[in-house]
């Protein structure tokens, strides 16, 4: 269980090589660009969620049990939902577009 497996440093080659179902040829240029864009989109959304959750957790006023601060925290969490749904949607699109 310890043999490290070779990595192929190409963005889409792993999909071609390792996809659960075989893909007969490399994706078209347009699809490649789409996938790159989607990966970046997911990454941005996830980072933003991290930032929002961090902000919510660090909120000192909320810690002081202020009702306004809790309302502010709820707003942050709503924004978390928005970015989360965007990330999930983009992953679904990757799964749809990636060679499967």
């Amino acid at each position, binding site marked *: 269980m310890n043999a490290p497996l070779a990595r192929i440093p190409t963005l889409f080659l792993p999909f071609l090589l390792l*996809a659960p179902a075989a893909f007969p040829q490399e994706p078209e240029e347009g699809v490649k660009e789409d996938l790159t864009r989607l990966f970046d989109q997911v990454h941005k959304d996830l*980072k933003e969620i*991290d930032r929002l*959750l961090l902000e919510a957790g660090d909120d000192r006023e909320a810690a002081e049990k202020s009702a306004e601060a809790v309302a502010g925290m*709820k707003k942050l969490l709503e924004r978390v939902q928005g970015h989360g749904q965007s990330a999930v949607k983009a992953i679904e699109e990757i799964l749809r577009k990636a060679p499967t």
Partner: protein
Amino acid sequence: MDEEPLMNPEKRSSRGPRRGGSALVLLLLLLLPAPPAAAQSDARLKAIAEQQAMLRRRVEGLRQKMEGLGRRLDSEGRTHAAELLRRGVERLARETGPAGETKTIETRMAEIADSLSRELPGQVLDDQQRVITDLEELLTILLDRQDLERLEKALAEYQEDVANLERLRAEESQLLKETRELGERGASAEERDAAAALEELAREERAIESASRALRENLRSLEKVAGELDALVRAQERLLPAIQGASKGEEGSATADLLQRARVLAQALARARALAEAKAAASAAASRASRAESRAASGEISAEEAAREKEAAAAQAREAAREAARAGRPGSEATSREAASALEKVGQALASSGQGKEVERALEDLAAIEREASERAKAAASGFEREASSRAPEAGSAKEAAESAAKASAKAGEALDKGDAAAAEQAAREALEALEQAGGGETDPASLAREERKIGERAAEAAKALEGASASESSGQASDQARGASSSLARAASELESTDPAKAGPPAEEALERLKSAREAAKRALEEERAGIRSREEPLAEREEALAERARSLAEAIGGREGLTPRQREGASKATAESSRAMEEGARATREGEEARASASRSAALDALARARRSLSESRNVGETAPEEAKKLAQRQREIREQILELARRLKEKPNRPRPKSLDSAGASAEEAADSLDRGDLGEAEPKEEETEKYLAQARDEVEQERSRYLRLREEELLFKIGDELASMIKAHDEARARTAALDGERREAGDLTRAMKVGLRKTAEAEKQVAEDCARVGKALAEEEAKVFAFLLGSNEEDLRGIAESLGAPEFATDERVQGLQEDVADRFAKLREALKDEIRRRERPPEQGTNEGSRRNRLVPDLAELKMLKQLEEEALDRTQAFGRRLEFLEGEEDAFTRGELTRLAHRHNRITELFQEFMLRLGHKPGEPEDADAKGEEGSPPDGPPRRLR
């Protein structure tokens, strides 16, 4: 590895028995569940003792059956299955157990039965457990389940073999390189002289060919322009009546109808012609390939040369396909595409197989299409002839046109009968033109203007081409006239587009006259050029004759030269003499004005000269010029051979390891190469060295293939093992969950926590802690296999399980909703993992799809897409939790507590890990994640924290 296993591990879709030994395996499975005896009543003990005795008898029967079946399978040649049975029998005979108490399964079972009959159940529990373990091992052997250790050992050995074979191949390659270098250095002075003389002859022959081509180029250009001017004259003649406003009545209508039919006929004939040409081109390419094979079979040319020739034949077919596509005339593009496509198929067949049924099939298909096209064209010609005869108008030019069209179509039919599709097409075009001149065709001024402009443009191009083709007076006149026609045509087009198209007549007439003049002048220029070319080509013919003589003398000289080996003399002299004959033929063809024949002869002469040079270099013997160097190379070749034989011997010693077939061939060719080198015959040694290198590469690939198979087997086994581990963890966790819920219920009922409950909770906490440790162990293994997301899930479970264990145990003894909620989360993640593993196992059991290389793709335990799917689930789960957390905040209405904040920190921490996993995933795919723009953060509220988000802990 061709042997059939008792159960094929690669095809196992379940772990149940399938093949020859299936009855045995079933029997064994029946034996396995024998329960350990506990304290029982006397009667029960007696029954268990009887059952135990019966099981022992079954094991004995099993052993006998395995021995008998093993012999039978061996005799049937199913050696692998027989080997499994033999190992099974050995396992039954092997003694196991603690030192000093080792026993066979049967002995142990007999003793258990004895103890039970003597009502001593307490002594048998350990022994029964041991029996179960032993029988499980036996089952593993019969199912041919590979143990990981064995697979990894085999993989390491394969890896070593691949490395050894690659090293030997590289050594052989180096040896070949040095042999060639030695050959170059070892050329005798006589050989170098002969090679230089041959090169000089080839240079001169190429120069003659080049000069001849240049001379013919002008002629070809003039021919083309003259043909074009002729076509332009006819096009203008066709349009002129319409431009002049020729009247149309009943007669015109009948002619127009016939004209339409004539167009259909012309199309049918164009199709027949295109397909006939395609068939001829395909047959020529196939014959070329076939000839190359025959020549290779008779040893006239090498296999490599034959392969090159076949490739050239395929290229020839493809070039013909391109030509067919290019030659498409307006209105017959589909026809050209059809012919091009048929030729392309022949080209593909030649390229892919180069011979055999595929090519034959492609040719047959093409012939069938061509036959069908020809029959249709014949029917169309015959139908048109009848129509033209019966519907000819009473009198006038239309009558003449219809009659001449009828005659032309009859001519087309006859030409088709003779198989001359080109003549048939020409006849149909004549019919079409006759009818067009009689008043058919376009009458719309705008369309006529477009036609006139097109003709004008073509005339201008013809004028330009004439300037470059010849400097003769006639050519100049033709060019002037064509240019003038172009101007007249432009004027005619302008008038047609004006409000009074009737004024277009005079310039159109003028254009026709000028085009006719240009055509006549171009014909004169062509005749002059033809007359002149003979005289200009004569010096070339003389040069080639002289060259032939030089080649003949050189052939004789080489044949008698002392410093060459007999094979060099024979091969080079023969090929040089052949080149001389081809040059003579080239000179003759030049004098007879047969350019294509002359060119083919020069090409043959150049081929022969190249063969002569090869004969010199390949039949060289350095035994005299560099005997020591050759002997050293021979010694190295022998060393490589020894290593090949040693490797083959080692592989032979391992009965379960396949021995690459190419290794024997590599050994044989290496020996031949060494012998040739010993004699200093490098020409003979080089091909043998090439063969040796090729066989070594093949052997390496064969072993590599086997290594890949073992890699897959190892991964499958790993997945099964992880599945087993997961099942155990799930079972233990489910039991702990059930105990927690039960104790929580009891506690609520009792209103307090009793001592017995505390003991129970401590045990449950221990059990959960054990599951946490198992998660850590399996998670580590998964992380090592790069299954990062899966490892993360187990890591999350480990973290939660440790928290659960802490809460369940002293001093907290918590069994509340929070603890049970965490337990549920853990169970959910286990379920997700189990499902994903099942999916992966199912995926691997499916055969690779056709037309893909999926077979070679399965080189990771968990594929990327499976991980991405899991990441998506994790994100969804994180969102659900965040949403649930938000809902709880509403109820708190500002009464946030430490636990709530702690939960938020946990959410943030988990989410940050998801982000990290996604980043790792992207990096693994070679995509460097960019920094987020924080557009949202810079929006309505707050400012982003300094720097990128930190890892939350």
